[in-house]
């Protein structure tokens, strides 16, 4: 027979252990592995589209709930995070629940907006975990798109109004002759 005091003590120890286990779980990253299947470095010209392909897998024994993945892009030249407004139509992807050992594809279509070098990571965040899981870095090398073609635009920019003025002269002259 366990005496009531001893029973209370054992119960307290048990509760303390459970509390530690829960805390330890919360301070962990979710048991997910994220692989980038596309090239580690993607290059292109401003205006091009590339697809970053990845895979997320639950490596744990239990399902991970309330899972969200999102992109994080950093301009490595200016050392600044980039607003994804024009870079990707889908900045985040809500997965919800991923079962144990289940793997899901992650595809992001990225629009190269501005020249420079960038680092992209995919971040996964799940309910009950304080630390997010991040993928390896994908580097972007975006070369500038040169729109500098004054030779083409100048004849049109000057020519169109001149032609219109000439047509106006002709119309006015014709009207006066008719009168």
């Amino acid at each position, binding site marked *: 027979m366990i005496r009531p005091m001893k029973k209370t003590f054992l119960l307290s120890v048990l509760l303390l252990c459970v509390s530690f286990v829960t805390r330890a779980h919360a301070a962990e990253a979710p048991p997910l592995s994220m692989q980038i299947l596309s090239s580690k470095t993607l290059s292109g010209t*401003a205006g091009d589209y590339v697809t970053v392909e990845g895979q997320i897998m639950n490596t744990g024994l239990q399902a991970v709930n309330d899972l969200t993945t999102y992109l994080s892009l950093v301009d490595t030249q200016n050392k600044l995070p980039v607003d994804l407004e024009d870079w990707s139509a889908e900045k985040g992807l809500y997965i919800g629940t991923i079962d144990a050992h289940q793997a899901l594809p992650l595809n992001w279509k990225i629009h190269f907006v501005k020249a420079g070098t960038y680092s992209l990571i995919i971040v996964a965040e799940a309910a009950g975990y304080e630390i997010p899981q991040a993928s390896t870095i994908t580097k972007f090398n975006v070369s500038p*798109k040169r729109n*500098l073609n*004054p030779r083409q635009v100048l004849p*049109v920019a000057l020519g169109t*109004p001149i032609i219109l*003025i000439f047509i106006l002269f002709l*119309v*006015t002259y014709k009207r006066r002759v008719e009168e």
Partner: protein
Amino acid sequence: MFTHIWKKEIQGELYTWKSMLWLVIASLLFSFTSYLLLTNKELSLLDQTELLWLLGKIIVGVALLILTIDASSIINVEFERETAESLFLSPVSLRDFILGKLLASITLWAAVFLVSIPYIIVTSAGSHLAWAFIGYIALLGMLGVVGFVFLIFGISLLYRSSKNTITTSLIILLAFATPALFTSALKNDVVSQVFSKINPIDNIFNSLDNVLVDYKISVIENWQFLLPLVIFCAITFLFLFLSAKRFTQQGIIRND
């Protein structure tokens, strides 16, 4: 009979220096914009498709502004010069009168569109988007212009005053155009999103964005923007129909 009114209007609109100068000014505006976009170092860092979108917005915006002002006076001038009475005494029905004036307004839009084509071609060089850009400017511009002209003609038949029609029409244009220029960050709430779905100018700009920036060129991919524009034209046509009915009931000489 409407062709007679149309020809008469076109002769008045496009046959004198004064009445054609706006087209030269519009052309100078397109020249300045395209030259700046293609040669300015800061702006040239923009993706070419963004540049095309900006030019598209300017072309449609200029056309709508010109058409709003012109359509506001094209009907009212007949009342103010007191030529409406003699016009309706001749075998001209109200339908022919409106149709002739509508064709004249569409001709002005066609003139702005034709002037914009060289700029569209030169700015789209190398992007393979020139034909899509021209086609969608023609389609979206036409739907926008026809919708606004129906609305303005309806207001004209109610007001019978150029000054009041111009003021009201410009305010309506401004009310549609200002939210369309807001960034997407300012369109996060439900009210803005709903207004954006029904706003014809927003739909024109969003469809151009869809075509030029997101490369969604087919009509099916732009149906969500084209349908509200068609509905806008239908609603404004209904408004014009009701105004015309009221006008017929009141007669040319209003007893108020």
